[in-house]
C-alpha cells in the first residue's frame, strides 16, 4: 500500500500558475489609499521591487521560476503527498483522503515557497533589508530563512499575542539572523498610535502590517514583504497545487474536494488555484473547493465584499475583498496565522463567484480533529492546518453517511511543534470557542460615519 507519493526533484514545477489569466473578468484594481484612484506600479515601488509589482498585476497564465530560486526550493521540494489511510480507517469512511505536507520545509510550513522568491527579487534590485509582519511566527521565520540565503537583513514585527505564546519562533528567526519585535512597538508611528489607545493590546496582523510597511517606506535600503493576501504571494504558492495535481495523476486520481485553511489566503491559493483553474476552464467543472476559517474571524463567511485597507493604519492600497473591517482585532485564537480581517482579493473573488465556498469552525472542534489526525497519521499539525483537517474529516464523515467514495485533498500547511502550548490549553479545557457577534457588529458599524 503506497503511503507517500513523491515527485523527483527534476519534476518540480518550473513555472508558477497565475489564475488571473483564467478569471472570467479582470480583478477589481487595488486603489491608492490617499486618492482612491486605481493604484499604479509607482504607488507600490517604495515598498516592493519592480518584478514583484509586475507579477502582482500580470495576467499571463504562467510565470517562470528563476533557477536560483528553484535551487533553494530543492532543499525540501517537491513536498510529499500522503494518502491518509489510517485516518480513513479510523473514520470508517469510503472516502480517499490525500494531503500535501508542507511541514518538511526548514521553517516547518508552506511560507518559504514565497519567502525565497521575494528575497531573491528584492536582492536582485539592490535591496539590503526586508521588513515584515508575522502572526503565528511562520512567515517571520520563513523570511528569516530566505533572507539568510541572500545575505540580507530582516526585521520582523510579530503580533504580540503570538510573541508571548510562541517564544521559540523568535529564537528561530534569531538563528537565521533576523530581528524580531513584539508588535505594536514604539519603533513606528503606527505602533505608537495603537499603544497610546490601548497599552495592553494583544496586537493583530493588521497592526503589524502597518508597522512593517511604515518601516519599509521610511528606509531607502528596505522593502516590505507580505506573507499572504497579495496576488504574487499566492502565485508563488501554486507550486503546492501543481505538484499535488501531478502526484495525484501518478496514481490516477483527481480530487472531488480540495480543502485548505484561509487566513490571508496564500496556502489556500497555493493548493487550490490550479484546481480552481481547471474548474474555470471547464476541464473539471465539478471539483469542489473549500476554504476553512476560524469562527472567531469569519472573513469569507460573514464579512462584506468591499474595498478595504489591508492594515489597521490604512497605509496599504485598498483592495476589493471580503473583510471584517480593517480595524477589527480578532480574538487571540491559537491559530494566529488565521487572525486577519481581510482575505486575498483572488480568493475573495472565487468565493464571491461561487467557484469556491467557505466554512467556519470553532477552536475546540479544530483541536479535536488535530488530535485525531496526530493519533492516526502521526504528524502533530499546526492549529492553522488543523482547520483544514477538521473540514476534511467532516467531509469524510459525510461520505460515510452517504456512501460516496469521494477523493479528498487537503493542505497540511505545517507541523505544530511550536504550538504545543495551545494543545496544552486544549487538554486543560481552557480553550474558549471564540465566536463572531455578526448582528451586533453590523449594528455597531451602521452607526459609524461613512469614510471614503
Amino acid at each position, binding site marked *: 500500500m503506497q503511503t507517500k507519493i513523491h515527485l523527483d526533484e527534476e519534476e518540480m514545477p518550473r513555472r508558477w500558475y497565475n489564475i488571473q489569466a483564467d478569471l472570467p473578468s479582470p480583478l477589481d484594481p487595488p486603489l491608492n489609499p490617499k486618492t482612491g484612484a486605481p493604484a499604479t506600479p509607482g504607488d507600490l515601488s517604495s515598498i516592493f521591487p519592480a518584478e514583484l509589482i509586475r507579477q502582482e498585476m500580470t495576467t499571463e497564465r504562467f510565470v517562470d521560476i528563476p533557477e536560483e530560486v528553484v535551487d533553494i526550493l530543492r532543499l525540501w521540494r517537491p513536498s510529499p503527498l500522503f494518502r491518509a489511510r489510517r485516518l480513513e480507517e479510523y473514520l470508517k469512511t469510503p472516502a480517499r483522503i490525500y494531503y500535501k505536507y508542507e511541514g518538511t520545509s526548514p521553517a516547518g510550513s508552506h511560507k518559504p515557497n514565497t519567502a525565497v522568491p521575494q528575497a531573491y527579487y528584492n536582492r536582485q534590485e539592490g535591496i539590503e533589508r526586508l521588513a515584515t509582519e508575522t502572526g503565528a511566527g511562520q512567515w517571520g521565520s520563513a523570511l528569516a530563512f530566505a533572507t539568510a540565503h541572500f545575505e540580507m537583513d530582516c526585521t520582523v514585527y510579530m503580533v504580540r499575542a503570538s510573541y508571548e505564546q510562541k517564544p521559540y519562533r523568535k529564537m528561530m528567526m534569531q538563528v537565521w539572523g533576523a530581528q524580531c519585535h513584539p508588535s505594536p512597538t514604539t519603533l513606528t508611528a503606527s505602533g505608537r498610535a495603537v499603544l497610546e489607545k490601548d497599552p495592553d493590546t*494583544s496586537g493583530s496582523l493588521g497592526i503589524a502590517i502597518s508597522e512593517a510597511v511604515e518601516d519599509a517606506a521610511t528606509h531607502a535600503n528596505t522593502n516590505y514583504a507580505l506573507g499572504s493576501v497579495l496576488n504574487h504571494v499566492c502565485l508563488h504558492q501554486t507550486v503546492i497545487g501543481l505538484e499535488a495535481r501531478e502526484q495525484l495523476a501518478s496514481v490516477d486520481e483527481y480530487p472531488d474536494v480540495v480543502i485548505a485553511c484561509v487566513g490571508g489566503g496564500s496556502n489556500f491559493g497555493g493548493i487550490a488555484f490550479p484546481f480552481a483553474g481547471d474548474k474555470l476552464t471547464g476541464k473539471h467543472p465539478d471539483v469542489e473547493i473549500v476554504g476553512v476559517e476560524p469562527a472567531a474571524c469569519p472573513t469569507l463567511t460573514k464579512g462584506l465584499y468591499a474595498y478595504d485597507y489591508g492594515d489597521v493604519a490604512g497605509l496599504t492600497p485598498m483592495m476589493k475583498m471580503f473583510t471584517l473591517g480593517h480595524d*477589527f482585532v480578532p480574538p487571540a485564537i491559537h491559530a494566529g496565522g488565521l487572525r486577519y480581517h481581510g482575505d486575498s482579493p483572488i480568493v475573495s473573488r472565487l468565493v464571491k463567484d461561487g467557484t469556491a465556498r467557505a466554512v467556519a469552525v470553532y477552536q475546540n472542534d479544530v483541536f479535536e480533529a488535530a488530535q485525531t489526525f496526530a493519533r492516526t497519521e502521526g504528524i502533530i499539525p499546526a492549529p492553522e492546518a488543523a482547520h483544514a483537517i477538521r473540514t476534511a474529516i467532516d467531509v469524510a464523515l459525510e461520505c460515510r453517511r452517504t456512501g460516496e467514495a469521494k477523493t479528498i485533498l487537503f493542505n497540511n500547511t505545517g507541523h505544530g511543534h511550536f504550538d504545543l502550548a495551545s494543545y496544552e490549553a486544549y487538554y486543560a*479545557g481552557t480553550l474558549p470557542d471564540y465566536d463572531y457577534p455578526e448582528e*451586533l457588529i453590523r449594528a455597531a458599524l451602521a452607526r459609524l460615519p461613512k469614510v471614503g
Partner: protein
Amino acid sequence: MSDLRKIGFVVNPVAGMGGSVGLKGTDGLVDRARELGARPAATVRAAAALRQLAGRPLRFVTAGGEMGEAALDAAGIAGYDCAYRPTLPTAAPDTRAACRAFLERGVDLLLFCGGDGTARDVADAVGRAVPVLGIPAGVKMYSSVFAVDPGAIGAVLPADGPLRCTDAEVIDVDEGAYRENELRTVLHAVVRTPTAPGLVQSTKQVCEEADEDRARTAIGAFIADAMLPGVLYILGPGTTTGAVARHLGLEKTLLGFDAVLDGRLVGADLNESTILALLETADEARLVLSVIGAQGFVLGRGTQVCTPEVLRRIGPGRLLFLGTPGKLARTPLLHVDTGDPLLDGAFGPYLQVVTGYGTAQRKRLGTRPGAAQAPDRRR
C-alpha cells in the same frame, strides 16, 4: 490594591449541616439537622484553609469560640485579636455584627467560612469596603466569592505583594423553593474578591483577557454602539450590564432590571408587570443579561422578572448575553432555567456570549447545575 496584613476571619459554625442530612440548606433548620445527626464541619474546613496561612506575617481579627477562635487554634495560629463575642447559639446577626467589628479594626480582607447564606450576611455588613473571600463549607455555593476548595486559599492569597481583586456576585437562593427542586437565584450583592491569575494560567497567556474591568468597559461600549434606534433594551442585573449603562452615561440599578430606549432610561428597577407594560409600547425589544455567579447562570427562574411570559414576548432569539473572558474561563457551562422546559429548549446547545468589543464566545449550555456534562473527548 493594598498589601495584605490584617485579616478579619469569621466562621458560620452550622454551615453545611443541612446538606449532610439531605436538607439542601441549613437556614432555620439547625435543630432539625442536629436531630438528624448532622455534625458541624465548618471549623474543620476552616482550619484546613488557615493552616496554609500559618507562618505568614498576618494578623487575624476574629470572633469568639466556634465563630473563629476554634479554627485558628486548630490551625496553630496564635496572637489573634478577638473583636466580637457571640451569645450562643450563634445566628446570622452575629455574622454581620462580627464583620462590622472587624471593619472597625481596619482589616484588609474578610475571610469567612460558610455557604451562600453566610456570604449574604458578610456582603450586607461589608459591602465593597474590603475584599471578601469564602472558604467553602456550605450546602449551596452559587456565589462567586468562594475558593474552589479550602486547599486553594493559600494560592488565592499572595504571600507578598498587593492583593489583586475582581468583582464577584453574591447570589441569593430561595431555600424553600430549592428544596422543591426549583432554583430561584437572585443577585444579592456585588462584592470585591481576590483573583488568582496563577490558577487560571491558560487564559493568562492571552493578554487581551487579563483585565476584567477593561473587558467590561469594552463590552459596555460595544453593546451601547450596537443599540438600534426605536428598540427597547432591558438591562438585567450585574456589573457587566452596568457597563453598558455607564457607557451611555446612565445610572443603572446594580441589582435590578432597567430599560433603555434611544439612549434614555425609560424604566428602573422593573418587575414583571412594568416590563410587560413597557413591551406593549415597543415594537421590538432586547433583553441584555450577564453571566451571574460561580455556576454560570444567565437565566435563573424566579428572578420575578424573566418569567416565561416576558421571555416569550421578547423572543428567545432576542436575548443578548454578556460575560468577561475571565468569568467565562471560570465557568465551563452556562445554565438556563426559565421554569418552562420548552422555552429552555429554544436556546439550543450553545449560547453566544459577548466578551469584548466585537468579540464573543460560544459556550455550551448545561441542563441543570450539577447535571452530568457531555463526555469529554479530550482524553
